[in-house]
């Protein structure tokens, strides 16, 4: 038998090896007794045992007792994947008074017994792996987890329903919250809706109390018309730079009386009103909607005469009178805040139907998106809640087309989840407002939430026509005399089995939800990931929907994926809870797998600095050496591999340890 070279390492290494049967999961394929006997003969192994369930209490006790009785100072556990029980066994070592990082796990289940069937070769492989671990563990050093304190304030980005709810929960818990919203008012998309499904509650009525609560909460600093421009730091210790865009109105002085708007030299609005999606016009000085929070007016510099020519009469200032709230000289300002956790609730945008020419949007005036219709039927909308079309007509027949920009390889593959419900809602509201004949063209009717199927039942009672068929075309091509002057929707009625042409006065496109246009820029700013479709990526789709892979940053609402209001609120509460859990722990433990520069070897070439995905490496000019911030370092190992002179070492993955492991695998028994 060839001689096994002796392990290089501290001479007083005494290793305990524990082989788990895992019932028959491992023992069914691997000869665990032979494995334990083999391990017992390896150098520096003082104890070698096998046991049915190492992770059980008696199993753990075995290790603890052996450590005391046999003076063990290194442990190898050959069992399942470390993802499952590494933490368990580390705690065992800690209880027994050993540094938890003097443990090495060997995976003889997922890597051996679950993927091989031949007992002989599986056992040989297990022996190789255990031998490697024994050699490696001798070189393990004690490591300490670091604790850093956590700043108890939280930044919430996005003032829609999710951001509002998260901010309120955190503020009620006594934490300082900064809510940053880039529009002049909070409220998000929900403020634009008329009624919400399935209860048909008025959206503004249920939203505005929460909005005013945010505006007046002592623990919330509300920064509207502002954006985050820089994020530095790490969990518990973020430094964020916020840009405040100039309203040209002093927020502390404006009382929202709106006299300035009435007095503006523009007698009528000329600029398409963003809140009403261009269906009405506004003046350069405006308030987004009557219940805006904060109730402060804003001036749009692109359309205001004073900015264009400098020669305006400025009747607005006159109307403001003594308050002197208008300030044309206002400038963009920046502010730095320090916070411990961040919740991103930046919401969604709707699919732009111009991308699908067959649906007629933009070609025919009476084709609307669902969001535009929400404004039309809203009492504070452009037509005072009457459904009056762009050409002045009142519709007697309306077609609502589902799945525009959803479930489609030509635009977005996903189902946008809310459109079936809101299409049913719009069908009901349009019928109520106009008495028109309403046709819903759907593919599947997706109504899974609480009360949603019952809502569908209610619509079925109301006499809305449901045609199951994806709409092929909307055009003004008339074949039958009844189609003249109308918009004709052509679709196969799949349930009936023939093609139908249905003339309508108004077409409503149920547009799907998409990530915001700048979602990629935002996620890069905050250093989180996006899915391939552009939604912010959660840590685990089932078990961790509101946390991200970046510690201390949480996501909530539609920015994570299409969802309705109840789910957005639930996620917002969850994100707030996770942020609270982080903050109330008062400090956070960091894994010690960090890399460090070996100063004596570092040549100052700076190759490592751009390699770090977490910007943890900086250059210390005085010493002309690189420096790794342990707290930012995530232990990815890129710099270790990239350093041309090998002057970076990583805890728990040192070169010596890895080479020993490799040699252990390759050596013959």
């Amino acid at each position, binding site marked *: 038998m060839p001689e096994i070279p002796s392990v290089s390492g501290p001479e007083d290494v005494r290793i305990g090896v524990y082989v788990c049967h895992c019932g028959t999961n491992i023992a069914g394929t691997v000869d665990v007794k032979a494995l334990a006997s083999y391990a017992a003969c390896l150098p520096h192994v003082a104890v070698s045992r096998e046991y049915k369930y190492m992770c059980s209490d008696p199993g753990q006790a075995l290790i603890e007792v052996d450590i005391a009785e046999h003076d063990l100072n290194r442990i190898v556990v050959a069992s399942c994947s470390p993802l499952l029980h590494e933490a368990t066994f580390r705690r065992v070592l800690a209880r027994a008074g050993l540094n938890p990082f003097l443990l090495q796990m060997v995976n003889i289940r997922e890597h051996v017994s679950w993927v091989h069937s031949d007992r002989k070769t599986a056992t040989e492989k297990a022996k190789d792996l255990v031998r490697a671990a024994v050699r490696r563990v001798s070189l393990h050093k004690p490591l300490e987890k670091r604790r850093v304190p956590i700043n108890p304030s939280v930044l919430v980005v996005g003032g829609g329903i999710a951001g509002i709810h998260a901010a309120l929960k955190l503020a009620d818990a006594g934490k300082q919250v900064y809510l940053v919203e880039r529009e002049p008012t909070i409220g998000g998309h929900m403020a634009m809706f008329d009624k919400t499904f399935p209860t048909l509650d008025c959206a503004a009525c249920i939203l505005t109390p929460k909005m005013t609560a945010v505006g007046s909460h002592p623990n919330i600093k509300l920064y509207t018309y502002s954006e985050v421009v820089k994020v530095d730091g790490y969990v518990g210790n973020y430094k964020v730079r916020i840009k405040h865009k100039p309203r040209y109105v002093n927020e502390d002085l404006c009382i929202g009386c709106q006299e300035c708007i009435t007095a503006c030299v523009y007698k009528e609005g000329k600029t398409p009103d963003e809140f009403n999606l261009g269906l009405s016009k506004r003046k350069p000085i405006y308030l987004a909607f009557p219940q805006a929070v904060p109730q402060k007016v804003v001036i749009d510099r692109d359309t205001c005469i004073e900015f264009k020519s400098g020669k305006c009469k400025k009747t607005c200032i006159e109307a403001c009178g003594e308050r002197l709230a208008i300030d044309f000289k206002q400038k963009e300002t920046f502010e730095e805040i320090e916070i411990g956790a961040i919740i991103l609730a930046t919401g969604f945008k709707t699919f732009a139907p111009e991308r699908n020419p067959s649906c007629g949007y933009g070609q025919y005036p009476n084709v609307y998106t669902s969001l535009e219709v929400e404004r039309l039927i809203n009492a504070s909308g452009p037509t005072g809640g009457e459904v009056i079309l762009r050409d002045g007509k009142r519709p007697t027949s309306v077609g609502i087309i589902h*799945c525009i920009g959803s479930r489609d390889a030509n635009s977005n593959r996903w189902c946008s989840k809310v459109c079936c419900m809101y299409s049913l809602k719009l069908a009901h509201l349009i019928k109520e407002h106009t008495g028109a004949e309403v046709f819903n063209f759907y593919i599947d009717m997706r109504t899974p939430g609480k009360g949603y199927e019952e809502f569908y039942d209610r619509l079925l009672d109301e006499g809305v026509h449901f045609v199951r068929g994806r709409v*092929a075309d909307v055009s003004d091509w008339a074949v039958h005399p009844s189609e003249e002057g109308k918009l004709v929707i052509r679709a*196969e009625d799949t349930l009936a089995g023939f093609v139908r042409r249905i003339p309508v006065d108004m077409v409503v496109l149920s547009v799907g939800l998409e990530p915001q246009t700048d979602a990629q820029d935002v996620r890069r700013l905050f250093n989180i990931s996006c899915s391939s479709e552009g939604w912010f990526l959660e840590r685990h789709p089932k078990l961790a929907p509101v946390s991200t892979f970046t510690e201390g940053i949480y996501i909530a609402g539609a920015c994570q994926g299409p969802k309705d209001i109840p789910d957005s609120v639930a996620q917002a509460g969850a994100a707030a809870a996770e942020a609270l859990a982080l903050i109330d722990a008062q400090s956070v433990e960091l894994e010690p797998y960090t890399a460090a520069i070996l100063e004596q070897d570092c040549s100052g070439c700076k190759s490592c600095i751009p390699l770090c995905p977490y910007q943890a490496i900086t250059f210390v000019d005085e010493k002309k050496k690189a420096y790794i911030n342990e707290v930012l370092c995530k232990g990815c190992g890129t710099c270790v591999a990239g350093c041309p002179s090998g002057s970076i070492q990583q805890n728990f993955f040192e070169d010596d340890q890895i080479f020993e492991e490799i040699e252990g695998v390759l050596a013959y028994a």
Partner: protein
Amino acid sequence: MELKRTVKFEADRDPEFARWVSHTVGGERIRHCLQCGLCSGKCPLSLYMDYTPRRLMHLSREGFKEEVLGSSSIWLCTACYACMVNCPKNINVTHLLYALKQRAIEEKRYPRRFAIPVMARQFSDMVRGSGRITESWLVVRVFLRTSFWRLLGMSRLGAKLFLSGRMPLKREKIHRQPEMEKLLDSVAATRKELAL
């Protein structure tokens, strides 16, 4: 009142046909068809079909060979691609229709003196023989074999075309006609060898 009993047993399905459908060019993603009906909605000829394109997709993947190969749909399709280009699941509807058409011609499932396969045969013969199509003679040949009366009915149009110089009677031929035969024979041989 005439009653027709329709219930389909598993024995009515042809699994070989279903398998062929999902492996033939065009049938690759047939299992993904959601039956949304967009293909039928876009198709300008679906109003004349006995089975709309959507129904044909489902019947094909389930293996209802008789219904599929006996349908009028496969003959009505003009291969305008409106269905395929817009299909939300990227199913190659048009190419599958071509495959079904070819199979129907192979298995001779069409009425006697049906113009489409006759046209196809005359067309391919003319290509083999001359390398190019002379429209005038092609039309004559097809109508002679299908409906002589229709040919007479078209004579006025034919005369107009001839008089406006758009229906030359001179045969269009390529110089290197033997290349056509070599080409076509080679394809036939390789096809046999590779069992395509």
